[in-house]
């Protein structure tokens, strides 16, 4: 168990305990065991079906019941009171689902939409949104991207204009995971349309009423068809004079950009964890194939070129994993390691994509067949180099952190 040494704020890792990694305690490993078992039992068997129908809302409720949505939130809000490392464990457990879309939907709930409410929300907002979100009773979404603004967040055009004790919202959001069914959304708007970074404000916007009907002015204009992540419903959302009480402002007016920039850090590192875990699952599956599939008188894994492919994939994946763990340690230790988080996300996304490609290759014709699911992983994983910050934006952020 890690202990803090006298006079030092740094948690000294306990190397003697012989644990697999110093950021995880036995409690983390216990959760890992039980959550993984749950994922394998209640999600994995439905992975193919949910590619067609999308994940059912009931599974979110189920996860909430079991405490899996509130691992890092305090008990007073219905959470489990765990540390940041629990979100890494959770991301790794979800990798056993066989359904990238389901993982992403859950990640939006636990790592993108609810954390800002926890960090910035009033007690009333937490009561109305955080706790139901943690229980899985309400599905959340986060609305940043618009048809005309993705990487350039400051260029968004959705407005929220004060009118009495309400704000009136107009605009369009796109690529919104959970958007088509979400009960509420953490929405990024311009309260000062003339400004860029300093004109952005966050709101929690109810999208559906008690009966599940869209609130006045809100329309799901489209459910988007994608290359992968088919189990996840992704929406284009339109806001026409949608009214929101002033109390639904989240955080400070004009500070929304900075709030979101902060939020993105935790999200990116968890995304990185999902990537190395996804890569591990692909390697496991492909390794099994390589040991069974015979050609020219031997299992193909015994050909040196194939053996070396596995060695390279495993090495890259291990590097990504250790990078994410080391950065999580920094983050949990109170640092704000934007550079390393950004690097870890960049690195892990690419590793996942490279590993997916190599695994398809090793599976040969079967790698191209839907039945073997590696092609699904390839399509799912491809989003990681784009979503939650493109590779190019990551490189810019990292480069600027060197003063360039």
């Amino acid at each position: 168990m890690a202990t803090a040494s006298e006079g030092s704020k740094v948690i000294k890792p306990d190397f003697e305990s012989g644990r697999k990694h110093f950021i995880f305690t036995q409690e983390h490993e216990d959760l890992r065991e039980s959550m993984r078992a749950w994922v394998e039992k209640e999600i994995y068997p439905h992975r193919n079906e949910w590619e067609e129908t999308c994940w059912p809302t009931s599974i979110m409720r189920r996860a909430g019941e079991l405490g899996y949505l509130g691992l890092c939130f305090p008990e007073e809000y219905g959470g489990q009171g765990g540390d940041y490392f629990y979100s890494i464990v959770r991301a790794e457990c979800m990798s056993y689902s066989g359904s990238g879309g389901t993982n992403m939907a859950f990640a939006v709930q636990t790592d993108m939409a609810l954390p800002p409410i926890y960090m910035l929300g009033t007690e009333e907002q937490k009561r109305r949104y955080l706790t139901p979100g943690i229980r899985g009773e309400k599905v959340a979404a986060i609305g940043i991207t618009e048809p005309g603004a993705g990487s350039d967040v400051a260029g968004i055009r959705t407005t929220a204009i004060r009118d009495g004790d309400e704000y009136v919202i107009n605009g369009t959001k796109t690529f919104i995971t959970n958007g088509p069914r979400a009960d509420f959304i953490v929405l990024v708007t311009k309260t000062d349309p003339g400004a860029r970074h300093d004109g952005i404000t966050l709101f929690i916007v109810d999208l559906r009423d008690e009966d599940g009907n869209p609130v006045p002015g809100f329309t799901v204009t489209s459910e988007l068809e994608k290359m992968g992540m088919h189990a996840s419903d992704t929406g284009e959302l339109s806001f026409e004079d949608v009214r929101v009480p002033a109390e639904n402002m989240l955080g400070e007016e004009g500070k929304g950009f900075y709030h979101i920039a902060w939020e993105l850090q935790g999200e990116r590192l968890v995304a990185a964890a999902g990537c190395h875990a996804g890569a591990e699952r692909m390697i496991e599956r492909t390794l099994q194939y390589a040991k069974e599939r015979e050609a020219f008188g031997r299992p193909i894994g015994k050909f040196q070129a194939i053996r070396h492919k596995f060695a390279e994939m495993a090495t890259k994946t291990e590097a990504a994993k250790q990078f994410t763990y080391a950065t999580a340690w920094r983050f949990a230790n109170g640092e704000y390691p934007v550079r390393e988080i950004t690097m870890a996300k960049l690195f892990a996304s690419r590793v996942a994509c490279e590993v997916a490609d190599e695994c398809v290759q090793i599976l040969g014709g079967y790698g191209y067949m839907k039945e073997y699911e590696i092609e699904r992983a390839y399509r799912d994983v491809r989003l990681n180099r784009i979503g939650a910050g493109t590779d190019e934006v990551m490189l810019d952020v990292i480069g600027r952190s060197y003063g360039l």
Partner: protein
Amino acid sequence: MTVVKVTGERAPLPPFGEEHEQLRESVRRFVSKEIAPHVDEWERAREFPRELYRRCGELGFLGLKFPEAYGGQGGTHLHDAVWVEELARSGGSGGVAAGLNAHASIAMPPIFNFGTEEQKQRWLVPGIAGEKIGALGITEPGAGSDVASIATRARRDGNRYIVNGAKTFITNGVRADFLVCACRTTEAGGHDGISFLVLESDMPGYEVSGKLEKMGWHSSDTGEITFTDVEVPAENLLGEENGGFRLIMANFAWERLVMAIGAVGAMDRLIDAAVAYAGEREAFGRPIGRFQATRHRIAEMGTKAEAARSIAYHALRLFHSGRDCVREVSMAKLFTQRALLEVADEALQIHGGYGYMREYGIERAVRDARLGPIGGGTDEIMKEIIGRTMGL
């Protein structure tokens, strides 16, 4: 206006702690003051002064992980890792690092781990003091990756061995006083027929037959050594007769970790240089670092370096805690050496014409880095090892 907050005050990354910071600082100071300014000259001379061993010994840097009973500092491999990383970061010479580290971390550990008390007094103690220089001799002209096929023969004759054969690519091989030498002690040799004998350079028949000229590591003397009927006393047998293969395997882990950790320090040095140059050098009206392609290139370099650090430190942590870590050490070696080579090449590109000039030290870093994926176990062998740990 920047939204991005850079990393500020930070704790040492595990497995290092506050207790290693002082050592880090003193190594940095020593290397910056007593090594870095002379590297250029030593590279041209194709050797660094023998005196440097004595100086490092005097300051305790050669005995960090060895017990005080032998003149060491009584520290751990973590202290050694600090030395290795900072020597690379502040020294800028793969050759000097190779000479010092081959002595302290490749030649001496077998004596410490497998030697008798008497053997430790004869070689470990003067080695830690820097009074005698050691080298490890395994590779031969006809056997590199295939260690089990070494042919140097040590035939037992009464209370001595008669040694015939040759070694090559031996770091410190030209001026080593003692050579920890792998020999075939059975006719068949192989995994169960190899032993280690400690040879001394003044033994009749022991000849430095060549000082090899290399692409990089210029300040490190690399020797070809031939043995013609060298008579080696039986007391110079290190460990068990025919048990040498185990000794070889035991030694590889630390050797490979030293290379991995050294690469981490070297990458930091190159990135600092690239950032500084890109921030100053102007072209088309601005510092070149403000061109997105260059900014991105530096971002790539930094990302690779941090990923390399993570996997190297992880392997180091496992090694230090006594856990079985063949897989992680092999991965760390594989990853870090390739990463350093790429980072060095990118740094060269960023420095443009100046990168190609000897004066800037960048082209030296490239030439030095090229050995990484070969020495200490080739990339291909690393992949074989890793693949086998996966059951292939």
